[in-house]
Protein backbone atom coordinates (compact mmCIF):
# COMPACT_ATOMS: atom_id res chain seq x y z
CA UNK A 1 0.00 0.00 0.00
CA UNK A 2 1.49 3.31 -1.03
CA UNK A 3 -0.84 5.50 1.02
CA UNK A 4 0.82 7.55 3.75
CA UNK A 5 -0.99 9.53 6.38
CA UNK A 6 0.34 12.20 8.69
CA UNK A 7 -2.05 12.37 11.58
CA UNK A 8 -2.95 14.60 14.51
CA UNK A 9 -3.45 13.46 18.09
CA UNK A 10 -7.01 13.11 19.37
CA UNK A 11 -5.96 13.60 22.99
CA UNK A 12 -7.08 16.78 24.67
CA UNK A 13 -4.60 18.87 26.60
CA UNK A 14 -5.26 18.71 30.28
CA UNK A 15 -4.25 21.18 32.92
CA UNK A 16 -3.09 18.58 35.34
CA UNK A 17 -1.19 20.08 38.26
CA UNK A 18 2.47 19.25 38.86
CA UNK A 19 2.69 16.18 41.10
CA UNK A 20 2.63 17.06 44.77
CA UNK A 21 3.89 15.05 47.69
CA UNK A 22 1.52 13.68 50.28
CA UNK A 23 1.10 15.59 53.52
CA UNK A 24 3.42 14.53 56.33
CA UNK A 25 2.29 11.43 58.20
CA UNK A 26 1.57 11.31 61.92
CA UNK A 27 4.28 9.95 64.19
CA UNK A 28 1.67 8.06 66.15
CA UNK A 29 -2.13 7.64 66.23
CA UNK A 30 -2.41 7.47 70.00
CA UNK A 31 -4.63 10.26 71.31
CA UNK A 32 -5.30 11.63 67.82
CA UNK A 33 -8.62 12.27 66.10
CA UNK A 34 -9.13 10.10 63.01
CA UNK A 35 -11.76 11.41 60.60
CA UNK A 36 -13.88 8.76 58.93
CA UNK A 37 -15.07 9.92 55.53
CA UNK A 38 -18.14 8.09 54.35
CA UNK A 39 -19.11 8.24 50.68
CA UNK A 40 -22.66 7.40 49.80
CA UNK A 41 -21.99 3.86 48.60
CA UNK A 42 -23.91 1.22 50.45
CA UNK A 43 -20.97 -0.61 52.05
CA UNK A 44 -19.19 2.51 53.38
CA UNK A 45 -20.87 2.87 56.81
CA UNK A 46 -20.32 -0.81 57.63
CA UNK A 47 -16.68 -0.70 56.55
CA UNK A 48 -15.93 2.42 58.59
CA UNK A 49 -17.65 0.97 61.62
CA UNK A 50 -15.22 -1.95 61.59
CA UNK A 51 -12.29 0.43 60.95
CA UNK A 52 -13.31 2.44 64.01
CA UNK A 53 -13.69 -0.59 66.23
CA UNK A 54 -10.42 -2.19 65.12
CA UNK A 55 -8.40 1.02 65.48
CA UNK A 56 -9.88 1.59 68.91
CA UNK A 57 -8.79 -1.91 69.90
CA UNK A 58 -5.22 -1.37 68.69
CA UNK A 59 -4.53 2.31 69.37
CA UNK A 60 -5.02 3.59 72.92
CA UNK A 61 -6.82 6.93 73.24
CA UNK A 62 -7.66 7.33 69.54
CA UNK A 63 -10.82 9.35 68.90
CA UNK A 64 -13.09 9.55 65.84
CA UNK A 65 -15.18 11.99 63.87
CA UNK A 66 -17.46 11.19 60.93
CA UNK A 67 -18.29 13.10 57.78
CA UNK A 68 -21.01 11.84 55.52
CA UNK A 69 -20.76 12.67 51.82
CA UNK A 70 -24.22 13.69 50.63
CA UNK A 71 -23.86 12.41 47.00
CA UNK A 72 -21.21 10.88 44.80
CA UNK A 73 -19.51 13.66 43.02
CA UNK A 74 -17.04 16.35 44.03
CA UNK A 75 -18.00 18.65 46.92
CA UNK A 76 -18.43 22.28 45.91
CA UNK A 77 -19.46 25.58 47.48
CA UNK A 78 -21.04 25.39 50.92
CA UNK A 79 -20.54 21.62 51.11
CA UNK A 80 -16.83 22.02 50.45
CA UNK A 81 -16.51 24.67 53.14
CA UNK A 82 -18.23 22.40 55.65
CA UNK A 83 -15.88 19.59 54.65
CA UNK A 84 -12.82 21.84 55.15
CA UNK A 85 -14.01 22.88 58.59
CA UNK A 86 -14.34 19.22 59.47
CA UNK A 87 -10.83 18.42 58.17
CA UNK A 88 -9.43 21.24 60.31
CA UNK A 89 -10.74 19.47 63.38
CA UNK A 90 -9.22 16.05 62.72
CA UNK A 91 -5.61 14.83 62.50
CA UNK A 92 -5.99 12.30 59.66
CA UNK A 93 -8.71 10.91 57.41
CA UNK A 94 -9.66 7.38 56.37
CA UNK A 95 -12.08 7.27 53.46
CA UNK A 96 -13.95 4.36 51.89
CA UNK A 97 -13.97 4.69 48.09
CA UNK A 98 -14.42 2.47 45.05
CA UNK A 99 -17.75 0.76 45.71
Amino acid at each position, binding site marked *: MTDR*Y*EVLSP*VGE*AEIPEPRR*NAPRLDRLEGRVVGLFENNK*RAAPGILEVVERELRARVPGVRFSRFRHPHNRELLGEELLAFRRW*VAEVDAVVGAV*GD
Partner: protein
Amino acid sequence: MYNLVEVEKLGKPAVALCNVGFAADARSAAMVKGYPALRVVLERVPCEATDGESIERGVVEAIGEVIRALTVPLQEEEWEEAVGRMAAWRPGEARGVVYRGNYEEVNRYFYRMGWTDGLPIVPPTPRAVEEMLRGTDLEPDHVVAHLPPRMGKATVEKIAVNAVMAGALPTHLPVIIAAVEALVDPSAWYGTYQVSTGSWAPFVVVNGPVRRDVGLNCSSGALSPGNMANAAIGRAIRLVDRNIGGVRPGIEDMGVFGNPGKYTLVLGENEEESPWEPLHVEQGFGREESAVSVFFPNTYVQAVAMGTDPESLVLTLARNVPAGKRNALTAILMIPDHARILAQAGWSKQEVVRRVVEVARIPRYRSPYMPPERAEGLSPRELPQREEDWMPAWTDPAQIRLVVTGGPGSFMALWISSGLMPARWVTKRVRLPKAWGRLVVRYRGIVPRHTG
Protein backbone atom coordinates in the same frame (compact mmCIF):
# COMPACT_ATOMS: atom_id res chain seq x y z
CA MET B 1 -11.26 10.23 45.93
CA TYR B 2 -11.23 13.97 45.13
CA ASN B 3 -12.22 14.74 48.69
CA LEU B 4 -9.32 12.74 50.12
CA VAL B 5 -6.99 14.75 47.87
CA GLU B 6 -8.51 17.84 49.45
CA VAL B 7 -7.52 16.45 52.86
CA GLU B 8 -3.90 16.11 51.70
CA LYS B 9 -3.99 19.65 50.30
CA LEU B 10 -5.08 20.85 53.72
CA GLY B 11 -1.92 19.23 55.09
CA LYS B 12 -3.49 16.24 56.82
CA PRO B 13 -2.69 12.58 56.09
CA ALA B 14 -5.40 10.72 54.19
CA VAL B 15 -5.84 7.10 53.23
CA ALA B 16 -8.33 5.62 50.81
CA LEU B 17 -9.72 2.24 51.74
CA CYS B 18 -10.57 0.85 48.34
CA ASN B 19 -11.98 -2.35 46.90
CA VAL B 20 -9.19 -4.25 45.18
CA GLY B 21 -10.92 -4.06 41.78
CA PHE B 22 -10.89 -0.26 41.81
CA ALA B 23 -7.17 0.30 42.52
CA ALA B 24 -6.30 1.70 39.08
CA ASP B 25 -9.43 3.84 39.11
CA ALA B 26 -8.58 5.34 42.52
CA ARG B 27 -4.94 6.05 41.53
CA SER B 28 -6.08 7.68 38.30
CA ALA B 29 -8.44 9.97 40.19
CA ALA B 30 -5.66 11.01 42.60
CA MET B 31 -3.26 11.68 39.71
CA VAL B 32 -5.75 13.98 37.98
CA LYS B 33 -5.68 16.10 41.11
CA GLY B 34 -1.89 16.10 41.29
CA TYR B 35 -1.41 13.59 44.13
CA PRO B 36 -0.04 10.47 42.40
CA ALA B 37 1.26 8.99 45.67
CA LEU B 38 -1.97 9.32 47.65
CA ARG B 39 -2.12 6.18 49.72
CA VAL B 40 -4.60 3.55 48.68
CA VAL B 41 -5.14 0.53 50.91
CA LEU B 42 -6.84 -2.32 49.08
CA GLU B 43 -9.54 -4.39 50.76
CA ARG B 44 -11.51 -7.42 49.64
CA VAL B 45 -14.96 -6.54 50.96
CA PRO B 46 -17.50 -7.50 48.26
CA CYS B 47 -18.70 -4.43 46.36
CA GLU B 48 -21.84 -2.86 47.86
CA ALA B 49 -21.65 -5.50 50.61
CA THR B 50 -24.60 -5.82 52.96
CA ASP B 51 -23.49 -8.73 55.13
CA GLY B 52 -21.53 -7.95 58.26
CA GLU B 53 -19.34 -11.00 58.15
CA SER B 54 -17.61 -10.31 54.85
CA ILE B 55 -17.20 -6.61 55.72
CA GLU B 56 -15.63 -7.63 59.01
CA ARG B 57 -13.21 -10.06 57.36
CA GLY B 58 -12.21 -7.64 54.62
CA VAL B 59 -11.54 -4.68 56.92
CA VAL B 60 -9.69 -6.63 59.65
CA GLU B 61 -7.37 -7.97 56.93
CA ALA B 62 -6.51 -4.41 55.86
CA ILE B 63 -6.39 -2.53 59.17
CA GLY B 64 -2.64 -2.93 59.75
CA GLU B 65 -2.05 -1.37 56.33
CA VAL B 66 -4.36 1.55 57.24
CA ILE B 67 -2.29 2.32 60.33
CA ARG B 68 0.96 2.15 58.38
CA ALA B 69 -0.48 4.38 55.64
CA LEU B 70 -1.26 7.06 58.23
CA THR B 71 2.04 6.84 60.12
CA VAL B 72 4.91 5.71 57.82
CA PRO B 73 6.40 8.72 55.95
CA LEU B 74 6.36 8.84 52.15
CA GLN B 75 9.28 6.73 50.87
CA GLU B 76 11.48 8.06 48.08
CA GLU B 77 10.96 5.00 45.82
CA GLU B 78 7.20 5.23 46.44
CA TRP B 79 7.25 8.84 45.25
CA GLU B 80 9.39 8.15 42.18
CA GLU B 81 7.19 5.28 41.10
CA ALA B 82 4.11 7.47 41.45
CA VAL B 83 5.65 10.32 39.44
CA GLY B 84 6.71 7.87 36.74
CA ARG B 85 3.17 6.47 36.55
CA MET B 86 1.82 9.97 36.12
CA ALA B 87 4.28 10.88 33.35
CA ALA B 88 3.46 7.69 31.43
CA TRP B 89 -0.19 8.60 31.64
CA ARG B 90 0.04 11.88 29.72
CA PRO B 91 1.01 11.01 26.15
CA GLY B 92 -0.45 12.41 23.00
CA GLU B 93 -1.29 15.89 24.10
CA ALA B 94 1.19 17.21 21.54
CA ARG B 95 -0.05 19.54 18.85
CA GLY B 96 0.79 18.89 15.23
CA VAL B 97 1.54 15.62 13.53
CA VAL B 98 2.06 12.75 16.01
CA TYR B 99 2.47 9.83 13.65
CA ARG B 100 3.14 8.94 10.03
CA GLY B 101 2.20 5.64 8.45
CA ASN B 102 -0.08 3.77 6.08
CA TYR B 103 -3.71 3.06 6.87
CA GLU B 104 -3.06 -0.14 8.77
CA GLU B 105 -0.16 1.35 10.70
CA VAL B 106 -2.17 4.40 11.73
CA ASN B 107 -5.01 2.18 12.91
CA ARG B 108 -2.76 -0.13 14.89
CA TYR B 109 -0.81 2.77 16.40
CA PHE B 110 -3.99 4.55 17.50
CA TYR B 111 -5.40 1.32 18.92
CA ARG B 112 -2.20 0.61 20.82
CA MET B 113 -2.27 4.14 22.23
CA GLY B 114 -5.78 3.44 23.51
CA TRP B 115 -7.29 6.13 21.26
CA THR B 116 -9.88 4.03 19.42
CA ASP B 117 -12.87 1.86 20.28
CA GLY B 118 -11.36 -1.16 18.52
CA LEU B 119 -12.97 -0.45 15.15
CA PRO B 120 -11.24 1.13 12.13
CA ILE B 121 -10.85 4.90 12.15
CA VAL B 122 -10.36 7.48 9.42
CA PRO B 123 -6.81 8.90 9.83
CA PRO B 124 -7.16 12.45 11.22
CA THR B 125 -4.84 14.23 8.80
CA PRO B 126 -4.54 18.03 9.00
CA ARG B 127 -6.43 18.23 5.69
CA ALA B 128 -9.32 16.06 6.87
CA VAL B 129 -9.53 18.03 10.12
CA GLU B 130 -9.51 21.32 8.19
CA GLU B 131 -12.42 20.09 6.07
CA MET B 132 -14.25 18.93 9.23
CA LEU B 133 -13.86 22.41 10.72
CA ARG B 134 -16.07 23.80 7.93
CA GLY B 135 -18.90 22.48 10.09
CA THR B 136 -18.55 25.33 12.58
CA ASP B 137 -17.84 29.06 12.72
CA LEU B 138 -16.16 28.66 16.11
CA GLU B 139 -12.39 29.17 16.21
CA PRO B 140 -10.38 25.90 16.25
CA ASP B 141 -8.85 26.78 19.62
CA HIS B 142 -12.17 27.76 21.20
CA VAL B 143 -12.58 25.66 24.35
CA VAL B 144 -16.05 24.08 24.32
CA ALA B 145 -15.61 22.44 27.71
CA HIS B 146 -13.20 20.80 30.11
CA LEU B 147 -14.05 17.12 30.21
CA PRO B 148 -13.71 14.99 33.33
CA PRO B 149 -11.99 12.98 34.66
CA ARG B 150 -8.75 14.43 33.19
CA MET B 151 -10.41 17.82 32.74
CA GLY B 152 -9.04 17.67 29.19
CA LYS B 153 -9.59 20.77 27.08
CA ALA B 154 -12.23 19.99 24.47
CA THR B 155 -11.20 22.56 21.87
CA VAL B 156 -13.15 22.73 18.64
CA GLU B 157 -10.09 21.36 16.86
CA LYS B 158 -9.71 18.33 19.15
CA ILE B 159 -13.40 17.58 18.79
CA ALA B 160 -12.93 17.77 15.02
CA VAL B 161 -9.97 15.33 15.17
CA ASN B 162 -12.14 12.80 17.00
CA ALA B 163 -15.05 13.43 14.61
CA VAL B 164 -12.82 12.66 11.62
CA MET B 165 -11.68 9.43 13.29
CA ALA B 166 -15.30 8.41 13.91
CA GLY B 167 -16.10 8.75 10.22
CA ALA B 168 -18.29 11.83 10.65
CA LEU B 169 -18.95 14.41 7.94
CA PRO B 170 -18.43 18.16 8.49
CA THR B 171 -22.21 18.54 8.66
CA HIS B 172 -22.24 16.32 11.75
CA LEU B 173 -19.80 18.55 13.66
CA PRO B 174 -22.30 21.12 14.99
CA VAL B 175 -24.42 18.30 16.46
CA ILE B 176 -21.36 16.76 18.11
CA ILE B 177 -20.29 20.10 19.60
CA ALA B 178 -23.79 20.70 20.99
CA ALA B 179 -23.81 17.20 22.49
CA VAL B 180 -20.47 17.86 24.24
CA GLU B 181 -21.95 21.08 25.65
CA ALA B 182 -24.95 19.11 26.90
CA LEU B 183 -22.84 16.40 28.55
CA VAL B 184 -20.91 18.86 30.70
CA ASP B 185 -23.99 20.62 32.01
CA PRO B 186 -23.91 19.71 35.73
CA SER B 187 -27.54 18.53 35.54
CA ALA B 188 -26.46 15.60 33.35
CA TRP B 189 -24.11 14.18 36.04
CA TYR B 190 -21.72 13.18 33.26
CA GLY B 191 -18.66 12.94 35.49
CA THR B 192 -20.36 10.31 37.63
CA TYR B 193 -22.13 8.31 34.92
CA GLN B 194 -19.14 8.06 32.57
CA VAL B 195 -17.01 6.17 35.11
CA SER B 196 -19.64 4.31 37.16
CA THR B 197 -20.03 0.52 37.43
CA GLY B 198 -23.47 0.77 35.82
CA SER B 199 -22.17 1.06 32.20
CA TRP B 200 -24.23 4.14 31.30
CA ALA B 201 -24.19 5.34 27.70
CA PRO B 202 -24.93 8.87 26.48
CA PHE B 203 -28.33 8.73 24.79
CA VAL B 204 -28.79 11.57 22.31
CA VAL B 205 -32.07 12.79 20.80
CA VAL B 206 -31.75 15.25 17.94
CA ASN B 207 -34.58 17.65 17.11
CA GLY B 208 -35.25 20.36 14.57
CA PRO B 209 -34.34 20.95 10.92
CA VAL B 210 -30.75 19.71 11.35
CA ARG B 211 -32.08 16.11 11.47
CA ARG B 212 -33.14 16.26 7.84
CA ASP B 213 -30.14 18.36 6.77
CA VAL B 214 -27.74 15.63 7.89
CA GLY B 215 -29.98 12.68 7.03
CA LEU B 216 -30.46 11.33 10.56
CA ASN B 217 -32.60 8.22 10.76
CA CYS B 218 -35.76 9.03 12.73
CA SER B 219 -37.64 5.96 11.56
CA SER B 220 -37.30 2.18 11.25
CA GLY B 221 -34.20 0.90 13.05
CA ALA B 222 -33.02 4.35 14.16
CA LEU B 223 -30.84 2.77 16.84
CA SER B 224 -29.43 0.01 14.64
CA PRO B 225 -26.26 0.32 12.55
CA GLY B 226 -26.79 1.45 8.98
CA ASN B 227 -27.04 5.23 8.93
CA MET B 228 -23.83 7.27 8.80
CA ALA B 229 -25.18 10.27 10.74
CA ASN B 230 -26.58 8.24 13.65
CA ALA B 231 -23.49 6.04 13.72
CA ALA B 232 -20.75 8.64 13.38
CA ILE B 233 -22.22 11.36 15.61
CA GLY B 234 -22.57 8.97 18.54
CA ARG B 235 -19.18 7.39 17.92
CA ALA B 236 -17.53 10.83 17.77
CA ILE B 237 -19.07 11.77 21.13
CA ARG B 238 -17.69 8.59 22.65
CA LEU B 239 -14.22 9.14 21.19
CA VAL B 240 -14.24 12.68 22.63
CA ASP B 241 -15.18 11.13 25.97
CA ARG B 242 -12.31 8.65 25.69
CA ASN B 243 -9.56 10.84 24.28
CA ILE B 244 -10.29 14.26 25.75
CA GLY B 245 -12.03 13.20 28.97
CA GLY B 246 -9.55 10.34 29.30
CA VAL B 247 -11.95 7.54 30.21
CA ARG B 248 -10.29 4.19 29.65
CA PRO B 249 -12.35 1.00 29.98
CA GLY B 250 -11.56 -0.95 33.13
CA ILE B 251 -9.50 1.92 34.59
CA GLU B 252 -11.64 5.03 34.77
CA ASP B 253 -14.77 3.54 33.16
CA MET B 254 -15.63 0.86 35.71
CA GLY B 255 -18.77 -0.37 33.89
CA VAL B 256 -19.09 -3.98 35.05
CA PHE B 257 -20.53 -5.55 31.91
CA GLY B 258 -20.27 -2.72 29.42
CA ASN B 259 -22.98 -1.49 27.11
CA PRO B 260 -23.19 -1.71 23.31
CA GLY B 261 -24.98 1.65 23.49
CA LYS B 262 -21.49 3.08 23.99
CA TYR B 263 -20.74 2.49 20.30
CA THR B 264 -23.42 5.06 19.51
CA LEU B 265 -26.91 5.85 20.76
CA VAL B 266 -28.27 8.68 18.63
CA LEU B 267 -31.67 9.10 17.05
CA GLY B 268 -33.83 11.83 15.62
CA GLU B 269 -37.38 12.47 16.72
CA ASN B 270 -39.82 11.82 13.89
CA GLU B 271 -41.36 15.30 14.16
CA GLU B 272 -43.07 15.11 10.76
CA GLU B 273 -45.17 12.10 11.78
CA SER B 274 -45.61 13.00 15.42
CA PRO B 275 -48.94 14.46 16.51
CA TRP B 276 -47.25 16.24 19.41
CA GLU B 277 -44.75 19.00 20.05
CA PRO B 278 -41.17 17.81 19.70
CA LEU B 279 -38.86 17.22 22.66
CA HIS B 280 -36.82 20.39 22.18
CA VAL B 281 -39.97 22.51 22.15
CA GLU B 282 -41.02 20.86 25.39
CA GLN B 283 -37.58 21.80 26.71
CA GLY B 284 -38.13 25.45 25.87
CA PHE B 285 -36.65 25.83 22.37
CA GLY B 286 -38.31 27.06 19.22
CA ARG B 287 -39.61 24.53 16.70
CA GLU B 288 -37.34 25.99 14.01
CA GLU B 289 -34.27 25.68 16.18
CA SER B 290 -32.22 22.50 16.22
CA ALA B 291 -31.20 20.93 19.51
CA VAL B 292 -29.76 17.83 21.16
CA SER B 293 -31.03 16.32 24.40
CA VAL B 294 -29.03 13.83 26.48
CA PHE B 295 -29.21 11.52 29.47
CA PHE B 296 -27.40 8.33 30.56
CA PRO B 297 -29.36 5.06 30.47
CA ASN B 298 -27.99 1.53 30.91
CA THR B 299 -31.13 -0.52 30.36
CA TYR B 300 -33.14 -1.10 27.19
CA VAL B 301 -36.53 -2.81 27.32
CA GLN B 302 -38.43 -3.52 24.11
CA ALA B 303 -41.97 -4.80 24.44
CA VAL B 304 -44.77 -5.66 22.04
CA ALA B 305 -47.83 -3.55 22.77
CA MET B 306 -50.31 -5.59 24.79
CA GLY B 307 -53.05 -4.01 22.74
CA THR B 308 -53.55 -1.03 20.45
CA ASP B 309 -56.14 0.87 22.45
CA PRO B 310 -54.79 3.83 24.47
CA GLU B 311 -55.05 2.04 27.83
CA SER B 312 -53.14 -1.00 26.62
CA LEU B 313 -50.35 1.17 25.24
CA VAL B 314 -49.97 2.94 28.58
CA LEU B 315 -50.14 -0.40 30.40
CA THR B 316 -47.40 -1.91 28.23
CA LEU B 317 -45.03 0.88 29.22
CA ALA B 318 -46.04 0.90 32.87
CA ARG B 319 -45.78 -2.87 33.37
CA ASN B 320 -42.34 -3.36 31.92
CA VAL B 321 -40.26 -1.17 34.20
CA PRO B 322 -37.77 -3.40 36.03
CA ALA B 323 -38.44 -3.07 39.77
CA GLY B 324 -34.83 -2.13 40.54
CA LYS B 325 -35.16 0.97 38.40
CA ARG B 326 -37.24 3.05 40.72
CA ASN B 327 -37.51 6.78 40.03
CA ALA B 328 -35.09 6.62 37.13
CA LEU B 329 -34.69 9.11 34.31
CA THR B 330 -36.37 7.45 31.35
CA ALA B 331 -36.98 7.83 27.64
CA ILE B 332 -40.13 6.31 26.20
CA LEU B 333 -39.64 5.59 22.51
CA MET B 334 -42.94 5.58 20.68
CA ILE B 335 -43.69 4.83 17.04
CA PRO B 336 -45.82 7.36 15.13
CA ASP B 337 -48.71 4.86 14.78
CA HIS B 338 -49.00 4.49 18.56
CA ALA B 339 -48.57 8.22 19.09
CA ARG B 340 -51.50 8.92 16.78
CA ILE B 341 -53.73 6.43 18.60
CA LEU B 342 -52.99 8.23 21.88
CA ALA B 343 -53.37 11.68 20.32
CA GLN B 344 -56.73 10.71 18.88
CA ALA B 345 -57.84 9.85 22.40
CA GLY B 346 -57.14 13.49 23.16
CA TRP B 347 -53.97 12.89 25.18
CA SER B 348 -50.94 15.15 24.98
CA LYS B 349 -47.39 13.84 25.46
CA GLN B 350 -47.53 15.04 29.05
CA GLU B 351 -50.87 13.34 29.61
CA VAL B 352 -49.53 10.02 28.35
CA VAL B 353 -46.52 10.31 30.67
CA ARG B 354 -48.76 11.29 33.57
CA ARG B 355 -50.89 8.19 33.01
CA VAL B 356 -47.86 5.92 32.76
CA VAL B 357 -46.62 7.29 36.10
CA GLU B 358 -50.06 6.78 37.60
CA VAL B 359 -50.32 3.14 36.52
CA ALA B 360 -46.71 2.00 37.03
CA ARG B 361 -46.57 0.28 40.43
CA ILE B 362 -44.12 -2.26 41.78
CA PRO B 363 -44.55 -4.48 44.84
CA ARG B 364 -42.66 -2.83 47.70
CA TYR B 365 -40.63 -5.92 48.51
CA ARG B 366 -39.17 -5.86 44.99
CA SER B 367 -37.51 -2.52 45.58
CA PRO B 368 -33.77 -2.74 46.16
CA TYR B 369 -34.26 -0.51 49.19
CA MET B 370 -36.37 -3.09 50.99
CA PRO B 371 -34.38 -5.23 53.46
CA PRO B 372 -34.56 -8.98 52.75
CA GLU B 373 -36.25 -9.74 56.11
CA ARG B 374 -39.27 -7.82 54.89
CA ALA B 375 -39.22 -9.68 51.62
CA GLU B 376 -39.33 -13.01 53.45
CA GLY B 377 -42.84 -12.31 54.66
CA LEU B 378 -43.98 -11.54 51.14
CA SER B 379 -42.90 -14.46 49.04
CA PRO B 380 -43.12 -13.97 45.30
CA ARG B 381 -45.76 -16.71 45.33
CA GLU B 382 -48.27 -14.36 46.93
CA LEU B 383 -48.27 -11.03 45.26
CA PRO B 384 -49.41 -8.27 47.56
CA GLN B 385 -53.10 -7.47 47.40
CA ARG B 386 -53.15 -4.43 49.66
CA GLU B 387 -52.64 -1.03 48.10
CA GLU B 388 -49.98 -0.08 50.67
CA ASP B 389 -47.76 -2.99 49.60
CA TRP B 390 -47.28 -1.40 46.18
CA MET B 391 -45.22 1.66 45.43
CA PRO B 392 -45.03 3.93 42.38
CA ALA B 393 -42.23 3.18 39.89
CA TRP B 394 -41.81 6.90 39.27
CA THR B 395 -42.79 9.71 41.61
CA ASP B 396 -42.31 12.61 39.21
CA PRO B 397 -43.46 12.74 35.56
CA ALA B 398 -40.53 15.11 34.87
CA GLN B 399 -38.24 12.05 35.05
CA ILE B 400 -39.73 10.78 31.80
CA ARG B 401 -39.53 12.12 28.26
CA LEU B 402 -41.54 10.68 25.40
CA VAL B 403 -39.83 10.64 22.00
CA VAL B 404 -41.69 9.77 18.79
CA THR B 405 -39.42 7.69 16.55
CA GLY B 406 -39.19 4.31 14.82
CA GLY B 407 -40.95 2.56 11.96
CA PRO B 408 -43.98 0.36 11.33
CA GLY B 409 -44.68 -2.45 13.79
CA SER B 410 -45.94 -2.67 17.32
CA PHE B 411 -42.92 -2.50 19.58
CA MET B 412 -42.64 0.02 22.38
CA ALA B 413 -39.42 0.77 24.21
CA LEU B 414 -37.97 2.20 27.40
CA TRP B 415 -34.43 3.42 27.90
CA ILE B 416 -33.84 3.66 31.62
CA SER B 417 -31.17 5.35 33.70
CA SER B 418 -30.93 5.32 37.51
CA GLY B 419 -32.67 7.09 40.34
CA LEU B 420 -29.49 7.28 42.41
CA MET B 421 -28.29 10.62 41.09
CA PRO B 422 -30.57 13.68 40.82
CA ALA B 423 -29.72 14.00 37.12
CA ARG B 424 -32.05 15.67 34.64
CA TRP B 425 -32.53 15.76 30.87
CA VAL B 426 -30.28 18.42 29.34
CA THR B 427 -31.02 20.12 26.01
CA LYS B 428 -28.63 22.38 24.08
CA ARG B 429 -29.12 24.32 20.89
CA VAL B 430 -27.17 23.27 17.76
CA ARG B 431 -25.33 26.29 16.32
CA LEU B 432 -24.89 26.10 12.56
CA PRO B 433 -22.17 27.87 10.56
CA LYS B 434 -23.09 30.74 8.20
CA ALA B 435 -22.29 28.61 5.15
CA TRP B 436 -24.57 25.79 6.32
CA GLY B 437 -26.71 25.63 3.19
CA ARG B 438 -23.72 25.10 0.93
CA LEU B 439 -22.22 22.51 3.28
CA VAL B 440 -25.47 20.54 3.34
CA VAL B 441 -25.64 20.51 -0.46
CA ARG B 442 -22.05 19.28 -0.62
CA TYR B 443 -22.63 16.29 1.65
CA ARG B 444 -26.28 15.49 1.12
CA GLY B 445 -25.55 12.88 -1.54
CA ILE B 446 -23.75 10.52 0.80
CA VAL B 447 -26.61 8.11 1.50
CA PRO B 448 -27.17 4.42 0.79
CA ARG B 449 -28.97 4.00 -2.54
CA HIS B 450 -31.71 1.82 -1.03
CA THR B 451 -32.85 4.73 1.11
CA GLY B 452 -32.98 7.15 -1.83
